């Protein structure tokens, strides 16, 4: 694998992957929780783009509408409902974060460089690289993986009951 014949597609992909790592670091290190939630939404959006480039169109749309939309709304409402009430709380929470800004990116860069060196010497002949996709996506989702669809229905029902249990205020006796 040589570096001389990298196409522009691949450059775009590498940049996007870099973007997702950076926005994930931002989501995890930023002090203000609202900004962290927005960084998480940006991470989901970049993941959507990655999936789109990899030809996973359905999953990309799902990820965009559900993760970037719904989960961000859940996070922002949770953050709004749990704001610290006193000023001391706010200050205390902010003090411990300084270390993380430096430590995490350094570790990440070290790991990334070592993995790059590792992969240039690796061969993956155990991987199944020559499959053929015989069935269309709709067939696979609705016929082969029908049991998963049933599972989805059941877990959505569980989620509905969970929301009822957790978010409903107790009736005053």
């Amino acid at each position, binding site marked *: 694998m040589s570096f001389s014949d990298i196409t522009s597609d691949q450059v775009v992909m590498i940049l996007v992957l870099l973007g997702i790592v950076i926005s994930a670091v931002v989501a995890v290190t930023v002090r203000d929780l609202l900004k962290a939630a927005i960084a998480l939404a940006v991470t989901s959006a970049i993941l959507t783009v990655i999936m789109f480039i990899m030809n996973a169109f359905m999953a990309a749309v799902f990820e965009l509408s559900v993760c970037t939309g719904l989960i961000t709304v859940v996070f922002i409402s949770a953050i709004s409902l749990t704001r610290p009430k006193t000023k001391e709380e706010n200050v205390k929470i902010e003090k411990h974060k300084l270390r993380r800004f430096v430590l995490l990116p350094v570790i990440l860069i070290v790991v990334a460089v070592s993995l790059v060196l590792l992969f240039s010497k690796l061969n993956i002949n155990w991987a199944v690289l020559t499959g053929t996709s015989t069935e269309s996506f709709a067939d696979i989702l609705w016929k082969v993986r029908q049991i998963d669809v049933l599972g989805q229905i059941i877990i959505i029902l569980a*989620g509905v009951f969970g929301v009822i249990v957790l978010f409903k205020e107790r009736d005053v006796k």
Partner: protein
Amino acid sequence: MLLLFLIVPLTGLILLNLLSKKAAQGSAFGFAFLIMISQMVLSLLIGSSMLNKDMDLFGSFFLIKLTANPYSVLMLFTIGLVSAVALVVGKCSNEGDNYKFNNLILIVLMGMNGVVMVNDLFSLYVFLEITAVTSFILIVLYKKRNALEGSFKYLIMSAIATVLMLMAISLIILTVGSLNYSDINLYVAKLGGSLPFPVMAAFVMFVSGLSIKAGLMPFHGWLPDAYMSAPSSVSVLLAGIVTKIVGVYTMLIVFQNVFASDKRFGTILMIFGCFSIVFGAILAIGQKDFKRMLAYSSISQVGYIILGIGIGTPLGILGAVFHFFNHASFKTLLFVNATAVEKQTGTRQLDKLGGLASKMPVTGGTSVVAFLSAAGIPPLAGFWSKLIIIIAAWQALEYSFAIIAIFASVLTLAYFLVLQRRVFFGELGEGFQEVKEVCAGIKVVEIVLASIIVGVGILFPFIFDFIKSLGLL
């Protein structure tokens, strides 16, 4: 036909919630109870081959393929039994409105049924996650402080386990190309002893994920906290069946179908099993809380089941599955007793309890039956299953494991004796003069479970012949 186990609770749940609020609340208990009884009956019919499980009721409408061997049919029966017990305990001992509990327990039922019947690794994950998410919700049903904390810990551990399992699944897609049990079995059988590194890593990660979700050693940290802080009926359900199906039965599935009973993994399982047996028993002895002692004792008993699976011979697997059923019956009975004691006396601390046998005869008597079965005293059921596991270990020339198992039986006897003496015999605790026996529903449940334990124990020789006729040995 097997699809009924999933479709019936689902349509029942949807129909129940379409009724008007009053009608729904009134009939939720009866509905759920009916569904669980029908699950037990159906699994018995399928098990005794009176109904053909491959009968296709839905034609080409559903293309879902589910499988069941005789062991998984026994699992389905056990799931129905313990869920029905938890339902009745919930009716008698839950404070306030029980409607959400009745609905959620149907969802756990569907989740566990799915786990036993699918034949695909990712679907296994989906149904495991259904069971886990519903357990989180059930633990925080009353939003008490401890419950929220315990459930959150469980949630984080479960999420870590999810990440491990899904990474393993993606590695398996990369190397094997498919997630079906049979395909992976063929792949492993074809490559024999020289599996490529990613496949080994994938299996290790998957099994670790399962162990975390199940609370097996050494990942048992979240288990006692989550059990203690849950409402009583929920802890009956969790300890009685959920943790075992999620952890132990999936281990059996993975070991048989995927590893193709490889000897190396078998040895690892045996080591973990013995570890759990001994350490669970040692940790149980020093406990001061009734339910916490039972939780650590569960860890110990599950070790026996893992040991049986690790042995790998048909006799070992039979012992493991049989001990699974026995543990479900006696541990559920013990937890129901603990619930009864807690409800009537208001405490679970062993130092404060005492002499309750005179005041609560049914609870005391049935707990003696459960404890004798747990300690492996003949002729109760627990004795047979432990004996089979020890014989299987001996036959497979694993003498050291057999000796450890025998020694740990003595430990089990020790802590259960302590439990019995402290709670039910000895002097009556202070302030317990007014304690009465618990409500009728719980009494009936206790008697039913105790009679199952005694019945299976006495009738075991006939059961053994029946199992031989099924060709499992």
